[in-house]
């Protein structure tokens, strides 16, 4: 069989960066992503290929070395794998389990935003309460930013990972930049 040629997903904001004293916005490093959907009966089986238990508490995430799992819904998780060497092996293992594992690496990209004004800049477009009490580090959630849907994931107190559809990322970048100009 002929070898299938794959288009490479280049990060859309490669080389771009914004930084002032209060905020820094940059493209996240390339990673592969899987939309995972599984019922409660399969959760135990999934522990082995993933290497950890999937988070089941709403709005929480789990990171183990290069693999992260974000709770999006009662039967839905986003897996982000930053190690390109383990991508196909993980997919093959997931294929043997009764679950839906769809590779969405080329659909999504991510922007990292950090700095002391990070909550203010995000709240320019996102109506969520992002205080540390309501949205502590490790929290993740699908939500809205302006007109687009994003997945917001708090990595540390002042650092967020924003997962976004690739074609929406230009809008997100421009919006964040606009909001960031009011800081610093």
């Amino acid at each position, binding site marked *: 069989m002929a070898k299938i040629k794959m288009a490479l997903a280049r990060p859309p904001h490669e080389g771009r960066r914004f930084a002032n004293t209060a905020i820094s916005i940059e493209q996240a490093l390339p990673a592969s992503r899987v939309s995972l959907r599984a019922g409660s009966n399969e959760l135990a089986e999934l522990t082995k290929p993933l290497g950890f238990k999937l988070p089941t508490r*709403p709005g929480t995430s789990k990171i183990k070395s290069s693999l992260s799992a974000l709770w999006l819904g*009662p039967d839905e998780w986003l897996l982000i794998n930053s190690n390109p060497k383990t991508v196909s092996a993980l997919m093959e293992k997931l294929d043997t389990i009764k679950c839906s594992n769809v590779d969405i690496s080329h659909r999504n990209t991510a922007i990292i935003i950090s700095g002391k004004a990070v909550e203010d800049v995000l709240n320019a477009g996102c*109506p969520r309460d992002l205080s540390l009490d309501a949205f502590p580090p490790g929290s993740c959630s*699908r939500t*809205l930013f302006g007109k687009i849907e994003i997945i917001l994931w708090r990595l540390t107190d002042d650092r967020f990972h924003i997962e976004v559809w690739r074609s929406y990322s230009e809008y997100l970048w421009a919006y964040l930049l606009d909001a960031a100009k009011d800081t610093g």
Partner: protein
Amino acid sequence: MLLIHCPYCEEERPEVEFAGAGEAHIDRPKDMNAMSDAEFEKFFFIRDNLKGVNYERWRHIHGCGRFFNAVRDTVSDKFLTTYKSGEKKPDPAKLKTGKGAK
């Protein structure tokens, strides 16, 4: 902004994350072929559209994606309670006295 409690996310979320999806607790008929046109019309098109307390379906479309049910007063736009799909209709008498109100 109006906050709506999502029973799956177990927290209050901004209204813009949600989409309304019509009246709740409408049972799908077991045998549609056996229905008369009038019966089908009643099931498919006719809704109560009450002024006041309504049982509604809502979807947390920009969140967990789940459908759930809500009791909402259409006069005050106040959500009296929300609950997971498949759960029993809450007793309206208890809601009016404030029990179970969010």
